[in-house]
């Protein structure tokens, strides 16, 4: 797939359709891949890579890139395309300045899961299609099935469909798929409030307020975040206590409610492994249940639930009735 991507990118550069390419750049190892912009065919040949470790969602970069001179080629995975479509809906990207090639994704790999198998000092990771062959300096040679080390977000994949594109690398387009992404939310909902409180305190207490979740989020595109604004009264550089931790994550999830496409980048990048997607998914699940199914980024026309209402919407007291006493 990578070779076809490079070949097509070179063609589009050569015929002037685009003047640069958004993709992923090789790193020191097999797995440390950085999103990057390529300008020439030579750069593409030398550094362009697209393998199962190229997990970063590049849509957010296009907010800025689409405002630069000329057209940019972007390779979008299904989840990236949802993010891009949502950004289009919010008029944050200039669609005409981006040439999109949809690429299929069968699930990206969580490198930490490979390491969690006790493999350290990794020398080489060979991709054998369905599995990896990992060699370490300590003499381990292990075959790891890809499915077992897939990113959690990919295991719960909601759709293989590319929702916005100029061309597809592979026909036909994928489909929205059956998924179990709300199971974990439902499991938490079934707990007692005390258990839930303990669960979230344990998770959120690890937050180091590095803002990686916010900065990577394709929905968080405010020019100035409320948490960076000295005049907002809530700006803070450190999660000084439990209240700050809760507040930051509740508000961040709330601000992207109805706009979050559930791409899972927040949880992927969290250096402290906080399952932040469970906050966003809770909002998505609630909105689906209370206001009808809605998938952010799926289409350009539907009104997002948070900027819409019905005269007969449920009252907030519905929350008291759902499980437990008032």
């Amino acid at each position, binding site marked *: 797939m990578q070779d076809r991507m490079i070949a097509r990118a070179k063609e589009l550069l050569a015929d002037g359709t685009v003047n640069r390419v958004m993709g992923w750049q090789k790193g020191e190892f097999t797995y440390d891949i950085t999103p*990057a912009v390529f300008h020439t065919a030579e750069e593409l040949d030398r550094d362009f890579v697209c393998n199962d470790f190229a997990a970063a969602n590049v849509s957010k970069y296009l907010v800025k890139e689409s405002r630069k001179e000329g057209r940019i080629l972007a390779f979008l995975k299904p989840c990236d395309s949802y993010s891009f479509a949502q950004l289009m809906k919010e008029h944050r990207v200039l669609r005409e300045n981006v040439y999109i090639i949809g690429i299929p994704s069968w699930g990206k790999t969580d490198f930490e899961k490979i390491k969690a198998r006790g493999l350290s000092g*990794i020398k080489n990771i060979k991709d054998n299609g369905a599995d990896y062959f990992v060699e370490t300096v300590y003499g381990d040679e292990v075959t790891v099935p890809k499915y077992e080390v897939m990113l959690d977000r990919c295991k719960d994949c909601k759709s293989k469909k590319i929702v916005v594109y100029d061309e597809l690398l592979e026909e036909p387009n994928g489909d929205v798929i059956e998924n179990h992404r709300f199971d974990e939310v439902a499991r938490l909902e079934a707990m007692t409030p005390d258990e839930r409180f303990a669960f979230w305190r344990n998770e959120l207490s690890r937050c*180091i307020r590095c803002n990686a979740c916010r*900065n990577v989020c394709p929905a968080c595109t405010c020019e100035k975040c409320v948490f960076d604004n000295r005049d907002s009264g809530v700006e803070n550089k450190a999660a000084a206590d439990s209240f700050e931790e809760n507040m930051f994550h509740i508000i961040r999830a709330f601000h992207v409610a109805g706009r979050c496409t559930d791409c899972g980048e927040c949880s992927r*990048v969290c250096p402290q492994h906080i399952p932040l997607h469970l906050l966003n998914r809770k909002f998505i699940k609630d909105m689906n249940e209370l206001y009808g199914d809605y998938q952010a980024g799926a289409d350009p026309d539907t009104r997002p639930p948070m900027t819409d209402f019905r005269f007969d919407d449920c009252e907030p007291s519905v929350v008291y009735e759902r499980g437990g006493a008032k």
Partner: protein
Amino acid sequence: MTYYKLPVSGLDALFARVAEQQTLYIPTDKDGHAVFAAYEAGMTLSKKLNTDRSAKDFFFPQTENLYDIKMKGKQLTVEDTREECADFTVFGVKGCDARSFAILDKVFLADPVDTYYKNRREHGTIVSLACNRPEETCFCRAFGIDAGDPEGDATAWRIGDEMYFAARTEKGEAFLAFVKDLLTETDGTMVESLKKAVAYIMDQLPLGNTSFEGMKQTDLMTHFQNEKWAGLSESCLGCGTCTFVCPTCQCYDIREFDTGKGVKKFRCWDSCMYSDFTLMAHGNSRNSQLERFRQRFMHKLVYFPNNNGGEFGCVGCGRCLAKCPIQTNIVKVEKALEVRSDD
């Protein structure tokens, strides 16, 4: 150096003994990730190479209260809220983190001395632990750190089912004296062979022989004006992950928190990646992510060595390699910027 040994099974007794007298922190696994935690009976040493967060928190915590101002009517009182003067011991600090304290000392113990930091340093005993299995993200050797022979007040080595100990400072001597009856004296042959084994592994690791000396081939302005910064910083998200997991990042901000009844003056880590870093009345001195990104690496690789006899502000722990959301890091930056002698 005098060496002592203790069967690994005897570690619990040693930990319990130390913890009786003062707070003892050890790296342990919590939810599958290694963290430093105050020792409690039954806690076991993590088998992971290193903790997710660095050990700088012990001396330079992410947030610390400096003082309080209380307000009663029109009466203002300033209250000292210091609580950094309790003795503590940290066991299991790896070579990279152990060196990071020497780098932080150069900043915080230089005139004017940071007394909060100094008090913590004076009351803390560091028992380092040699690495047995360095990883591919390790490049501590580039800074003259021997993962098999880490610095600290005392050092521990784990070899098979035995722990070996040796003291390096008075504090370390005191630590060993305190648990002496648990230890038996031995010679350093086993330790020497472990050091050799670790050095051999470092040679095999992809970054084991990384060198940063290439950065010194050219001057500050050439580095500063290097065109490559634009490309390198392009994908940077501007989050603070690298700075917050870094054992040597030392920038902080001093803020006030209005409690409604007074003010809490506190200090917290800052990150040069943030848009409000070194924000002043006139605005910000670094307005683009390029400038902020450049600041971080110039600080570690150029400014710091220039001011400190050539010592880099990095210890090669590899946390930024493992944690950066977009996998850009100091090694990549160095490789892009360095001037090779054959160029």
